[in-house]
């Protein structure tokens, strides 16, 4: 008996989705066992884009290491930097000026909107609709312009530093953000017309990729993917940082636990982000943008942990310090890694076509998973 290459003993087909595949949006490698079109098992293989960021951070000073984190989840670089700044400020007991706090939260929320826009377009593209991608990028472009004007970069931004901001905001900042909000509000209904209300789209999403709240918790899922199952896990509400405790916003929760619920969480979250920005943009206080700190930063001996809510979920930064200028050990708890681990449970028994929809709603960024 010769065994066919690429099949299991039961005669099921094994398919490699990735590392180069249009639906993985990066170098994710999924080994899928298929019975016809039905998925029996999904096994993610990681490591294709591992750059040992955590190890690199151990040889970088506390001022330097946040720059590397922009390359982790490149769609939430401001938020990653925010987390790094927060943990250094926590260790050094630095009080951040109010102006910096406001701008940080505005930038975080702009980043979140930009990330969700990209997710929306890419997910529609996974489902075979190309046009939404361009519509999403139209709005994302104006966020990128704001970012470019603020800190010179459009993707891997480095602006939030320990103690505040790298430099003061551009004089046009408030005006451009307001322009963006009015543009965005005029376009947001198009999203629902083009995708959300589409009958094919709803049939593809509803009842597909179900994960219960218990499973979501036990897999350590976080962010919009977990909130789609009704898990109360928004770090901005549970452990407020920055000035999130001073703004009014709702934690978006959906209870259905399927792909459509995760989709709706992100769509609604974008509207919440816009409302947060609206509350803050006119009230940015005058004053310093950077607290006075020592030239060489040294965290006291001990262990530190902070967490922030990125566009994908909970990003935790854990530092063990020996009192030197560089961290002794650093560990990032990235949201994508835990969210990906739930994919197997979600996908079993569904069709191959649904797998891309599930991966879309998990909003995977591969450099975030591998670091």
């Amino acid at each position, binding site marked *: 008996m010769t065994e066919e290459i690429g099949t299991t003993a039961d005669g099921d087909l094994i398919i490699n989705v990735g590392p180069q595949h249009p639906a993985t949006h990066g170098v994710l490698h999924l080994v899928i066992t298929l019975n016809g079109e039905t998925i029996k098992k999904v096994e993610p293989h990681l490591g294709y884009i591992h750059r040992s960021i955590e190890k690199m951070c151990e040889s970088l000073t506390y001022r330097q290491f946040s720059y590397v984190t922009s390359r982790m989840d490149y769609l939430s670089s401001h938020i990653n930097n925010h987390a790094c700044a927060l943990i250094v400020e926590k260790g050094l007991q630095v009080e951040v000026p109010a102006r910096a706090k406001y701008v940080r939260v505005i930038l975080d929320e702009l980043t979140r909107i930009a990330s969700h826009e990209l997710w929306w377009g890419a997910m529609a593209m996974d489902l075979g609709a190309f046009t939404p991608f*361009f519509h999403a990028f139209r709005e994302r472009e104006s966020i990128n312009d704001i970012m470019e004007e603020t800190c010179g970069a459009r993707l891997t931004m480095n602006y939030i530093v320990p103690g505040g901001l790298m430099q003061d905001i551009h004089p046009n900042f408030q005006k451009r953000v307001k322009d963006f909000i009015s543009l965005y509000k005029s376009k947001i209904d198009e999203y629902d017309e083009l995708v959300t209300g589409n009958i094919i789209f709803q049939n593809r999403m509803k009842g597909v990729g179900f994960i219960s709240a218990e499973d979501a918790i036990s897999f350590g899922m976080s962010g919009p993917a977990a909130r789609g199952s009704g898990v109360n896990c928004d770090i901005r509400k549970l452990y407020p940082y920055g000035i999130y405790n001073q703004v009014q916003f709702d934690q978006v929760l959906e209870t259905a636990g399927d792909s459509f619920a995760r989709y709706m969480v992100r769509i609604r979250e974008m509207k919440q982000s816009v409302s947060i920005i609206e509350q803050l943009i006119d009230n940015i206080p005058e004053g310093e943008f950077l607290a006075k700190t020592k030239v060489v930063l040294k965290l006291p001996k001990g262990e530190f942990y902070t967490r922030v809510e990125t566009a994908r979920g909970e990003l935790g930064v854990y530092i063990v310090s020996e009192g030197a200028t560089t961290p002794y050990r650093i560990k990032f708890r990235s949201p994508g890694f835990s969210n990906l681990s739930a994919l197997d449970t979600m996908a079993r028994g569904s069709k191959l076509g649904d797998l891309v929809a599930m991966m879309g709603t998990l909003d995977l960024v591969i450099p975030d998973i591998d670091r």
Partner: protein
Amino acid sequence: MWSFSNISSSIHHWLNESFSPTWAMIIEMVIAGVCIIGLFATLGLVLVLMERRVAAWMQIRLGPNRVGPKGLLQSAADTLKLLVKEGLTPNGADKFLFNFAPFIAMMVAMLLMAPIAFAKDFQLWDLNIGVLYISAVSSIMVISILMAGWASNNKYSLMGAMRSGAQIVSYELSAGFSILTIVVFTGSLNFNEIILSQTNGWWIFKGHLPAIISFVIFIIAVTAETNRAPFDLAEAESELTAGFHTEYSGMKFALFFLAEYINVFIVCAIGATLFLGGWMPFQIGNWQAFNHAMDYIPSSIWFFGKTFFLIFLIMWFRWTFPRLRIDQLLNLEWKYLLPISMLNLLLATALAILGWHF
């Protein structure tokens, strides 16, 4: 008047005077063949460019606008690129079938052109069973896709081919039923007679509800049959990379690509012929002056106008809708479209027997 029948009959007379009848026939066949290949290539180029411009227009961007005036030479440049590209055959592939499959796709597309009436008296083959011929020949298309998918020795290709097989075989049924509706109304399988029966009004207007229902079903079914989005499961870029033509490159890929566009053109031409009167001008009852003005528009413009309208419709679908899942696709056909089109055919037959259509 410069009508195609005058031109063709003068060529016919001249050839018969100059050569023996056998040679005259052979030369006529060659001329027709060259015309078809010319039309084929031109249509391919025009449709690819049109698709890209329509897509760009829907996606708030400009589309190709660099090569030639307003980007008109873009598809010619693309063809040149594909011509000089290496046509790779994978190691594990069945070499003969792998290389043969694209030619079947092309052959089917070319064969389908034969009975279509492009303008008044401009038809390559006035076949008395034109409709049957089209339905029969278009089913051969699935063989080329299955062959390509199986011979590639690639799992994605195989899955794409299997999906495509299930899909085309299913949707052929409702496409056939919706075509039959018109056949029942006209009582003829001949394209020319079907067009002539629409002198006093197109079937979509004359045939009441059944004609409209079958038109809608026809458009859905042929979109699926030509593997166009939202029914492009055989290719399904985000799931199967490129489906059945994953392993194809260069000109072999281009043949599939071209065949797809030609098929779109053909099904739209059939749709225009059956439901929208082919090359018949648009006429309203007793409005003599209006009807007369409409008659002045050449019949080829009527035909291509209607066909390109339907092509635009199908492109519009492609750039608006997400893709269906395979089980939803088959559900749509077997649970909805097929029963509806069967009932619709009964209704149409009743109408035709009672003579209730105009």
